[in-house]
Every structure is written in structure tokens, then in C-alpha cells.
């Protein structure tokens, strides 16, 4: 787990359109991230 005040781990990945997304792209902005277990499944 991470704690408030920790440096957010840098990341680079691809989104569902194939576009590269980096945490650094959002410098100076607030970022909300959430993980889900499997696309298009409830629960």
C-alpha cells in the first residue's frame, strides 16, 4: 500500500486506444486512478 505524502510511483502504459499514458503527462494536475479486476464485469 501507499501512504499519503509518498511520491506516486512513475508509470508509463498504453490506454485502450493504444495511446501512451505517463504519470508525467499530468504534472501540475490532480490525478485520480482506480483499478478494476476485469473489463466489463460487475462486482
Amino acid at each position, binding site marked *: *500500500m*501507499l*501512504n*499519503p*505524502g*509518498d*511520491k*506516486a*510511483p512513475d*508509470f508509463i*502504459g*498504453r*490506454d*485502450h*486506444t*493504444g*495511446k501512451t*499514458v505517463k*504519470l508525467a503527462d*499530468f*504534472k*501540475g*494536475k*490532480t*490525478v*485520480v*486512478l*482506480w*483499478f*478494476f*479486476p*476485469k*473489463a*466489463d464485469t460487475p462486482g
Partner: protein
Amino acid sequence: MSFDTPAENKAFAEKFHFNFPLICDTDRTIGTAYGANADPQKGAARVGVVIDRDGKIKEWHARVDARAWPAEVVGTL
């Protein structure tokens, strides 16, 4: 964000007209860094994170409701 492929998340995003990117962490690197890869045999844990303007963790939750939490938290920012 999930461990699904771009094709799986593309279908999901188009079905529900999501207006945000679904990051496809297929090798679980990001999930591991953010504490969402609790069980490598399963999908990601429902971790929710807010990162502040300085790149620091503002909130980290082990389990959030993917339907309600994002809108709730955006409303507090």
C-alpha cells in the same frame, strides 16, 4: 486501469462511452507499484488513488466502488 488487453478495454470503453483512458497494465507493473496486484492469479484489486499536483499520494484506498468513487472524489477536488 486493469490488467486487460487494449482490445478488451476498448470494447468496455465503447460499450459504456467512458470519457477517460483505460490503461492496460498487461504486465502488472503499475498495479504492483500501486498495491493493486494482491493476487497474481486474479485481476487487479479495486485500489483507488488520488495523486496531488506535486506528484505525491493524497489518498490510497484498498477497495473502492468503481461506479461511485471516481465521481465522489472528483467532487471533493
